């Protein structure tokens, strides 16, 4: 500061120095070259009062002293007053930075931008650890470049006031063209036109994670109609993967997740006890009525949702409901249906259905089932014995679909209006290449029906209640095929029945006596279609060859009927097995009869030699008689 010298008269020098000290004291914490500003009015007020002089005289003296020291002060005429500017160094020099090409510019407006196929590449769609929406700056360069727009120019539209797409797409020059235009303008000295206002060029489309483009300028009803599944899947995925659980969902119901009532251990124990005591799955409504009736009138639907949502996350509870009837089973509840066939075995036995060998819609179309709300079918021996029904396309059309994505089964009530009885039936839904089935009808089938009977399953007004009926007939007693579980053998037993049957499917001894020779194969073997096929050929086929070199012939209807004694099957499935088995050929002269020629065994069998002489032929029927 000592290097600063002031010009003018001695009085002016003293006054200028005093003004300078005042301003430096004002900006004592400023940077050395930072501007320090003060008005003439303020300086005059202070110094006139300090030196006890006239205001006008002091103002004139200050201004004159400053005018003499223009190397230190910059004088500017402001709107209301004169402003002096100086710095702690003695003279203020405005800073001149060279920022014609800053890092920021280089980053967002590169001279040679890398190609970006889609603007969504720049906007990160990856999920952050915390679901805060981070603003991502995208320079005007990228946003205004049509070549990098995801929807391109044809889907960039302007919105009118109604939000409806109106104006045609605006054609923007490519980036290269813009650069050329800028060079041309520079050459001609013309002022470049300002870039088109981004306000007028807005994108109304966004992209779902699966690539589906959603245009918000379209009516929402149209968007929903076109992209319902994609929108639903994307939203459900986000809801499920939201770590903050802002939204909760149960099936297709959505509600806020943060304020949901919770269920404590005591609540869960009481609910479980309630279900165990009932001995069957209970509706959510019943649980609330039993346990929370008096407490939850105000927020009934909210609490009902919370109950279902919380129970769905508890491992001791299993959802077995259907749309419109939320049923809950608990650990410890007795199993429904037969235990003689394991679930894994049934899933494999019905595996031919998801493999595409389902012919259940040949007799009754899908539309007819859905319109009439009922399915009629003939009972097979396997179904009659174990009380199961394969979950084929006909039953799938009739029965409700699962509510939850990971729902394995549903429990339905089948009512018999003819006998005023009801049965709990568990529907095991198919998964992947494993088939589905219904179980729990063992008692009804064996009490009132026989294999070959026609019965009908129909919907009722209650979503989880169905009726099962059959056509009644006069009493008939016949010796019918049965399975002796203790001996694990088939046999014929006198049975009286009162239902209409298809005579060709009724396994009466007088028609299908040799069926008793079928082996009650272990379920592990029954799931192998080729093993069952050859077994049926060997037991029921007519041997056209010799005992040493047998050739078994059987017609398709008998083959299929025998198949359904041992396992669920369909005609296409059996035909496929036949086609794939190289040892089975079509009989000459009949496309409906097949011949199975077993591979010759190398071991020498003396009995076989004896059997080969003469015209004697071996048939399963004779073998049956021998027994």
């Amino acid at each position, binding site marked *: 500061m000592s290097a600063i010298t002031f010009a003018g008269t001695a009085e002016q020098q003293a006054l200028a120095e005093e003004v300078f000290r005042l301003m430096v004291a004002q900006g004592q914490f400023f940077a050395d070259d930072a501007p320090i500003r003060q008005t003439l009015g303020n300086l005059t007020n202070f110094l006139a009062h300090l030196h006890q002089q006239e205001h006008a005289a002091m103002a004139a003296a200050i201004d004159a002293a400053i005018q003499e020291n223009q190397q230190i002060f910059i004088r500017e005429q402001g709107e209301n007053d004169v402003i002096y500017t100086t710095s702690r160094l003695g003279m203020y020099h405005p800073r001149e930075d060279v920022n014609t090409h800053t890092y920021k510019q280089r980053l967002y407006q590169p001279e040679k931008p890398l190609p970006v196929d889609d*603007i*969504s590449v720049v*906007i990160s*769609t990856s999920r952050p650890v915390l*679901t805060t*929406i981070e603003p*991502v700056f995208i320079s005007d360069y990228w*946003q205004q470049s049509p070549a990098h*727009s*995801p929807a391109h120019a044809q889907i960039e539209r302007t*919105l009118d006031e109604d*939000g409806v797409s109106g104006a045609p797409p605006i054609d923007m020059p490519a980036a290269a063209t813009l650069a050329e235009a800028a060079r041309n303008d520079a050459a001609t000295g013309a002022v470049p036109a300002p870039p088109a206002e981004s*306000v007028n060029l*807005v*994108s*109304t*489309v*966004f992209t*779902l*994670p699966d690539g589906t483009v*959603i245009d*918000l300028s379209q009516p*929402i009803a149209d*968007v*929903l109609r076109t992209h*319902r599944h994609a*929108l*639903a899947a*994307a*939203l*459900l*995925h*986000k*809801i499920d993967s*939201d770590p903050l659980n*802002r*939204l909760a*969902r*149960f099936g*297709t*119901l*959505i*509600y*806020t997740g*943060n*304020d949901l009532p919770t269920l404590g251990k005591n609540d869960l124990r009481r609910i479980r006890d309630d279900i165990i005591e009932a001995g069957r799955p209970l509706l959510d409504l019943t649980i609330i009525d039993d346990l929370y009736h008096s407490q939850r009138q105000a*927020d009934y*639907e*909210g609490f009902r*949702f919370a109950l279902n949502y919380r129970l769905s996350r508890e491992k001791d509870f299993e959802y077995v409901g259907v749309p419109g009837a939320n049923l809950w089973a608990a650990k410890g509840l007795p199993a429904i249906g037969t235990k003689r066939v394991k679930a894994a075995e049934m899933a494999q036995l019905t595996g031919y259905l998801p493999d595409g060998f389902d012919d259940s819609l040949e007799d009754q179309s899908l539309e007819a089932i859905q319109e009439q709300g009922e399915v009629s079918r003939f009972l097979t021996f396997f179904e009659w014995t174990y009380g199961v029904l394969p979950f084929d396309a006909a039953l799938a059309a009739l029965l409700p679909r699962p509510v939850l994505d990971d729902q394995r089964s549903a429990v339905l009530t089948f009512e018999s209006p003819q006998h005023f009885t009801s049965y709990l039936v568990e529907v095991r839904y198919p998964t992947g290449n494993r088939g589905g089935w219904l179980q729990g009808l063992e008692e009804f089938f064996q009490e009132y029906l026989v294999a070959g009977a026609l019965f009908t399953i129909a919907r009722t007004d209650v979503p989880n209640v169905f009726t099962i009926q059959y056509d009644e007939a006069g009493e008939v007693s016949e010796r019918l095929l049965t399975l002796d579980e203790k001996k694990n053998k088939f046999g014929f037993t006198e049975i009286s029945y009162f239902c209409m049957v298809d005579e060709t499917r009724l396994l009466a001894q007088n028609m299908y006596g040799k069926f008793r020779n079928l082996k009650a194969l272990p379920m592990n073997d029954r799931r192998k279609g080729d093993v069952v096929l050859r077994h049926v050929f060997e037991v029921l086929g007519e041997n056209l060859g010799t005992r040493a070199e047998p050739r078994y012939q059987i017609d398709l209807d008998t083959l299929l009927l025998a198949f359904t004694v041992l396992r669920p099957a369909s005609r296409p499935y059996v035909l496929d097995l036949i086609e794939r088995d190289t040892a089975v050929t079509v009989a000459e002269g009949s496309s409906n009869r097949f011949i199975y020629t077993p591979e010759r065994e190398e071991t020498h069998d003396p009995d076989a030699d004896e059997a080969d002489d003469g015209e004697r032929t071996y048939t399963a029927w004779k073998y049956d008689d021998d027994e």
Partner: protein
Amino acid sequence: MDAKGIIYGETALDQLVQWLDATGQPQELEAVIEQYLQLLRELMLEVQA
């Protein structure tokens, strides 16, 4: 807001939660999607205006 900046399932999700809260009971997925699209659209128009 330019629609390009919309992250479906994240943008305006808090407003959707508020709407659900205001309804006072669970809503079917379809109604929620419809409301969400409406929110996104309003957000887009609001910022553009």
